[in-house]
């Protein structure tokens, strides 16, 4: 590389590297640092090492290892369960629809892909708000159900775990659909026909030919849905009840109401660890699947 080339390269890279170094990397490192600092009495932080932030998450009370109560682990488990449920439901809904769109004539396909991508751009908060209108005791769904005589009293739909799952699935559907569609669209129809010609039953063809070939799309979609789902606090905040506290809500509370930043940072570190773990599992699975196919 000539001197002039080097100058051009660093002219391009320098400013953006400096910016991301200061406003992206350093903030991430400060979370790691804060997670091992002592929470101050009135919401501040004391610059002394403290390992009980993590201890608390795993069930020990602040600094006193007498009362063991894994309440935060339960919340973490609940968040993981919610994220996994969201992933599976999105997958179950998008998989058949992706086939339907892939089998459409070319001209129609563009239109329907467009229709799927479009709601994704309509503000997230507005789309969640719509479900508030629908699920309220006096909301649209109850009104319709009451009017048709299917129920005699309004159902309690809002502020339930199901409402949270519904909201999550609703906002994350396009994330699952697009990678899934990309995989399904490139399926080689000849292989499916070959499988049928060789005497495989339809379910065998699906399990042994179609599903393995679409696995990269399944994995990509699952990852893209899972990651923002784990730490999400907006959906539980708007559609969930008091009992549906998720890790995201817990972190938010530590920063904006309880003002225990070190504990909140420790929680965020755990969420990061979970995400990294999930990514590693997905990546190795995808590699294995890629090797087999």
């Amino acid at each position, binding site marked *: *590389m000539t001197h002039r080339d080097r100058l*051009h*390269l660093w002219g*391009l*890279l320098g*400013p*953006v590297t400096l*910016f*991301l170094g200061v*406003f*992206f990397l350093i*903030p*991430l490192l*400060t*979370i790691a640092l*804060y997670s091992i600092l002592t929470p101050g009495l009135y919401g501040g932080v004391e610059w002394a090492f403290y390992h009980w932030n993590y201890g608390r998450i795993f069930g020990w009370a602040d600094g006193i290892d007498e009362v063991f109560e894994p309440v935060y682990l339960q919340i973490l488990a609940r968040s993981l369960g919610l994220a996994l449920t969201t992933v599976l439901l999105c997958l179950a809904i998008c998989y*058949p*629809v992706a086939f*339907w769109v892939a089998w459409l004539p070319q001209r129609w396909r*563009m239109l*329907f892909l*467009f*229709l799927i991508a*479009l*709601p*994704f*751009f*309509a*503000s*997230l*908060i*507005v789309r969640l*708000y*719509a*479900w508030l*209108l*629908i699920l*309220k005791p*006096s*909301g*649209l769904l109850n009104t319709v159900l009451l009017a048709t005589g299917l129920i005699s009293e309004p159902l309690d739909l809002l502020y339930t775990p199901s409402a949270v799952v519904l909201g999550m699935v*609703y906002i994350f559907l396009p994330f699952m659909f697009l990678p899934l569609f990309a995989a399904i669209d490139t399926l080689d129809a000849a292989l499916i026909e070959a499988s049928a010609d060789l005497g495989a039953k339809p379910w065998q063809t699906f399990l042994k030919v179609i599903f393995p070939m679409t696995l990269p799309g399944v994995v990509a979609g699952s*990852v893209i849905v899972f*990651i*923002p789902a784990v*730490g*999400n*606090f907006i959906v539980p*905040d708007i559609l969930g009840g008091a009992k549906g506290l998720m890790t*995201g809500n817990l*972190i*938010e509370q530590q*920063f904006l109401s309880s003002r225990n930043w070190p504990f*909140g*940072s420790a929680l*965020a570190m755990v*969420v*990061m660890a979970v*995400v990294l773990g999930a*990514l590693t599992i997905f990546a190795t699975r995808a590699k294995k699947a890629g090797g087999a196919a």
Partner: protein
Amino acid sequence: MKRSFLTLFALGFFAFLYVPLFVIIGYSFNANPVNMLIWDGFTLDWYRGLLGLGTPGLDAQNRGIYIESTPQLLAALKTSLIVACSTTVISTIFGTSLALALARFQFRAKPLYTGGLMLPIMMPDIVLGIGLLIFFSTIGLRLSILTIVLGQCTFLTSYVCITVQARLAGLDPALEEASADLGANAWTTFRKVTLPQLAPGLVGGALLAFIISMDDLVITYFISGTGSQTLPIYIFGMIRRGVKPEINAIATLIILASMLVAALGLWLRARQDRS
């Protein structure tokens, strides 16, 4: 038989996607100021109020019902627009220079950059949000429009870079070499050869950055101060306080505006793919 079942399922899917949006639009014309879920006739009052043409729900005000104030709402919209315009410009410059460096040069730290590029996108929003909050408070920078812009640019740069990279991959480097061979200097080559070819990718990236910036809730939630609320943050607050009828009108306008911008972007891309 099986095919028609699949079609039915797909139609259900599209209904699921779109019915909630139409519900909001429908309710935004409901005249009932007390219970917006009970239909009480058609009105454009909420829109009039938002656009500053008369007082929304005049009757409602006479009956002493609190109406969300229009100036606050417009201030939030203004904040959102200032933030989105600044972040779009900055992240487009950063993202494009990063994409150019990655496409045109070989250097040792390259894998670090290509990997790091995905980090802001793959990371849970909330983690970046609190990281920025801790960082800004540690260095003593007060939360304001500035902190929102700085914070949003970190992840928007990645989105722009990836969009521009896709366009760069399809360009012919021979054209740039030809330009250099014919005696143009690097800057002229960039301006007259690279940039015009790159333009669709640039516009696409900038549009994406603008849309994501306007809609960002989680990260902005942690780094916006009391005096610098963006529109999504303001609406989030409104929903938490208990909803008022004009929120339907605001939401409808947001749906229409964002879909218009998105439709424009998708159309531009489709046209670019065809050419």
